[in-house]
């Protein structure tokens, strides 16, 4: 077991990701944060809170999306769906998809399909805390990335939100 990000590093990484979003988008009202269920929402909650602190008068839209029904491995194993809550239109918005770990890219592929069923966004970007390089099975890359790491397939990356650290098993 190896710690990739400790509590302090995790905190400043999340702050940096929030500032990068503010840097790219002057007006946050055109921005939609979508946390991907079930594990992406811990990161999206924290980024959302951070953006509220940085720009309290310029709120961003925030929703959560479950991608279970769009998975491509449904014939191997059924997954239990989590809650989807997108109470606004994504039409012509700049959507930031948020997940904790980017690995094969298949979850993001499913998330893109799911997102397009809610409307036609102006632009979609991807924000992840951990990018596992050289393990992609689809041509998907992050636009905002907390930390890139090199790992082998047999290893597992886990974000421990209660202990607030990222570990490699």
């Amino acid at each position, binding site marked *: 077991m190896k710690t990739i990000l400790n509590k302090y590093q995790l905190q400043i990484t999340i702050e940096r990701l929030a500032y990068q979003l503010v840097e790219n988008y002057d007006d946050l009202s055109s921005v939609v944060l979508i946390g991907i269920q079930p594990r992406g929402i811990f990161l999206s909650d924290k980024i959302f809170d951070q953006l509220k602190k940085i720009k309290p008068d310029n709120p961003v839209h925030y929703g959560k999306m479950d991608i279970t*029904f769009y998975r491509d491995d449904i014939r191997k194993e*059924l997954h239990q769906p989590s809650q*989807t809550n997108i109470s606004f239109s994504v039409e012509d918005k700049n959507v930031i998809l948020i997940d904790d770990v980017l690995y094969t890219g298949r979850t993001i592929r499913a998330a893109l399909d799911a997102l397009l069923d809610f409307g036609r966004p102006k632009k979609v970007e991807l924000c992840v805390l951990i990018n596992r390089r050289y393990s992609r099975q689809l041509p998907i890359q992050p636009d905002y990335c907390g930390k890139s790491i090199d790992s082998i397939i047999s290893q597992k990356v886990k974000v421990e939100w209660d202990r607030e650290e990222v570990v490699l098993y």
Partner: protein
Amino acid sequence: MQLSTKHLLGIKDLQLRDIELILSTATEFKEVLQRPIKKVPSLRDTTIVNLFYENSTRTRISFELAEKRLSADTLNFTASGSSVSKGETLLDTVNNILSMKVDMVVMRHSASGAPHFLAKHIPAAIINAGDGINEHPTQALLDAFSIKEKCGALEGKKIVLIGDIMHSRVALSNIYLLKKAGAEVMVAGPPTLIPKHISKAFDIRVEYNLKKALQWCDVANVLRIQLERQNQVLFSSLREYNLAYGVSKKILESINKEIVILHPGPVNRGVEIDSDVADSKQSIILQQVENGVAVRMAVLYLLSNKQNFN
């Protein structure tokens, strides 16, 4: 995450955990049905036949819509106008359909046990959409979903089933489900329409007085008088039935509480329920129909797992 059964033949075979899984999955499908594009690709590799040997409006449309919302390919078969009239047996009909690579069968039949028979002889997953006077599991599931949505929980709720208990597959499925979920169950109606030993067999209450039954309950599920299944006179006239057991505005006003009214449809207005009650705020008949699609999507999704397929 999986159901403990390969088919949905009846609530009798389900465990409480299966029921909870179906209802929680249905909650997420209900959200899908509110989206601009009310469709998910989960079952796009699945072909489903809707085999209806008996008339149906709600159940057939609801199943077909649920299948389409899941991106499945659907086939509709109704017995009238098919080779059934030339004498083809149920098993032959189904085997012929299955040889065209169909994965799941949704089936309604007037003979109790027809889907159970089929399940023994064919490899496809079978969903019972009503068999004779036995069970109608998806109706009980959508009733439970609707009660849960309206009242918060099933456990401890007092629920009365009113009317033709003897001929109602909805009643039997509801009794199984509600007992498993820990609700208190009562059946009410004329003695001729309530099976003799039902109270002992299922550990439920029996009441022959409508007002007392309504006073006791939180939720009343009013059942249709099934004239097509009655071959003897069990009550003197529909008018008399309405006077003694019809749920009217007057009787609801005479009890001092607001109860929730369900009806599985089709409604015989002026017989088991009066129009002003069926269309009132306390009736959730149309919500039941809406929830039916989400509940059936959940059942189809959960039974579509690969291991079930041949």
